[in-house]
């Protein structure tokens, strides 16, 4: 029973992280229908900037946090401006392959700069964040990740619902041509959505780095885990990303705990195939599948 509850807690925490990583992915897809294969690299980028700021530059944690989030935000802008903008209106495969190429570039750059070693952040989380409850121990990182996940969900939810930029983004996602004719600055929206997505990705990269340590390969492979999550939740639903993340996280930890650890990594993809066959638009996605 204790094992079960511990798995449950782990699953929920990891699920929240997957959900956060998926949120950034969904943001990009929602506004510009780009499937971002470089998402894992964006995660790793955030984690490494934070690492450099904390250890090399010796900034206090809060300042380092702000600097790295700003860095990710700008990175998103730059990526959109340099690479994605020339491709607006091109066929899907070019855009997909471009993000695959970007992933390779980023991975190479990060390996060049930081190498393939495993780094660990200095311990800076206050110990009183951890929760002890009837023999179950929740480490502070998990508490923090859940809190941050919820915080971002609320902020993004409010942003999309009430801010003018958020409404522009939704309008572009809904119908690009109509939004353009009504005077929405579509290119600006694309740039902003990439920037915000990179920021969210960097954020989740930092938290993942606190839990598992920072390694280019590990963090960028999380970018591929995002696919089952977003398909399960619905490619264009931010809330769905969190729910999908939770389900995939739980599924992974329970498979790893009860069935076999090696099956753990492949289970999300098996689920993915079945979802695609039964309900391709996911749990909360917009039902817009044409059968041809």
């Amino acid at each position: 029973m204790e094992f079960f509850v511990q798995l449950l807690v782990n699953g929920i925490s990891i699920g929240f992280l997957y959900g956060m990583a998926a949120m950034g992915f969904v943001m990009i897809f929602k506004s510009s229908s780009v499937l971002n294969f470089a998402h894992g690299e964006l995660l790793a980028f955030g984690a490494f900037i934070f690492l450099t700021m904390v250890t090399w530059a010796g900034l206090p944690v809060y300042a380092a946090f702000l600097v790295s989030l700003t860095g990710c935000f700008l990175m998103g802008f730059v990526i959109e401006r340099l690479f994605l903008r020339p491709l607006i209106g091109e066929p899907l495969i070019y855009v997909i392959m471009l993000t695959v190429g970007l992933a390779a570039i980023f991975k190479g750059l990060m390996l060049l700069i930081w190498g393939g070693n495993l780094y660990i952040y200095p311990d800076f989380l206050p110990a009183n964040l951890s929760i002890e409850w009837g023999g179950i121990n929740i480490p502070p990182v998990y508490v923090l990740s859940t809190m941050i996940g919820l915080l971002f969900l609320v902020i993004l939810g409010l942003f999309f619902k009430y801010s003018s930029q958020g409404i522009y983004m939704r309008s572009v996602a809904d119908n690009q041509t109509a939004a353009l004719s009504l005077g929405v600055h579509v290119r600006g929206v694309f740039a902003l959505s990439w920037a915000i997505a990179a920021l969210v990705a960097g954020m989740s990269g930092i938290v993942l780095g606190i839990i598992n340590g920072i390694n280019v390969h590990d963090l960028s492979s999380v970018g591929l885990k995002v696919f089952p999550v977003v398909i399960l939740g619905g490619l264009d639903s931010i809330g769905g990303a969190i729910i999908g993340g939770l389900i995939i996280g739980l599924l992974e930890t329970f498979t790893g705990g009860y069935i076999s650890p090696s099956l753990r990594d492949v289970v999300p993809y098996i689920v993915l195939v079945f979802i695609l066959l039964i309900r391709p638009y996911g749990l909360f996605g917009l039902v817009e599948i044409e059968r041809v």
Partner: protein
Amino acid sequence: MKLQLHPCGNFKERYEDELTIFETDYGRLWLAIGLSMLFGAVPFASGPYLLYVLNIIAITSIAAIGLNILIGFTGQISLGHGAFFGVGAYAAAILATQVHFPFLVALPAAGLITAIVGMIFGIPSGRLKGLYLTIATLAGQFIIEYVLIHWDSLTKGTRGIVLPPVSIFGMEIIDERQYFYVTFASLVLMTLIAVNIVRTRYGRAFIAIRDNDRAAEGMGIPIFKYKLLSFGISSFYAGFAGALWAYYMTSITAEPFTLGLSVEYIAMVIIGGMGSIAGSIYGAVFITGLNETLRWLTDIFMNIDALQGVGLTIAPLRELVFGFAIVLFIIFEPRGLAEVWRIIRSSFRLWPFSY
């Protein structure tokens, strides 16, 4: 017979003119010269290392042609080609070691098995298109990878399988030069088949589906059937190439057949030129050349003591250069090397009035 030169404009009068492979007799002549050079002179002029690179190029070209039929002609993006290549390699290895199939039977048999596996993973294409299909094939890649490693009784897990030496009609194929004939004969054969597939009704159906699937359906093309067929043909090529590769490497493990390999194949198709059979070969040459050059550079740096640190740090350069090659081609020449080649040729032909 008078050799016919390339005309300066489009003077085609019949449908057969559109479908022809060689537009002029010079094309035939050059191909004949090229092929006789390839088989007569190249294997004797090149050393073992160059022969090795050429063999790898021939094998990857076959797989790239298969992927081009799926992506470039049918418009279905697959991220599982590397895994299908692996399925072919394992099918050949298992058929050769456990059922004792001879080489010439194991090769097409491995292709057929891979075609069936590919069609199974192509089934989602009946309901899905575009992004969703890409993600489905991504899942296929991971599932196949997992099965290759963990179906221990059949694939021997991480220990790998050692294949018997190749023998064709009692003749043992041992050195690189002999294998050169095997790989390039296969490449010529498979290219010939591919070039002819895309100009039959099947190929035209594929192209119709790529250009507009709803219109194709409206014109009476059973889309699902043709998509599956395209998956089957593409996987057959992948499996055939995988089987050749397995025999060439003599022992295989599941390690190389990762998502990275799939991405490499897609890069070949894009860099070479989507919707061009010759383009797939250019792409395979380009990527294999790039890989070998970078490996060579790393080796040089590693052997100089003072620069060993540099050698270690440029290992990730491969990733970087590879990424830049893809990105630059997509942004500046999305139709690939085949288009570059076409532009060069036509500017010669139309000289001095080329634009």
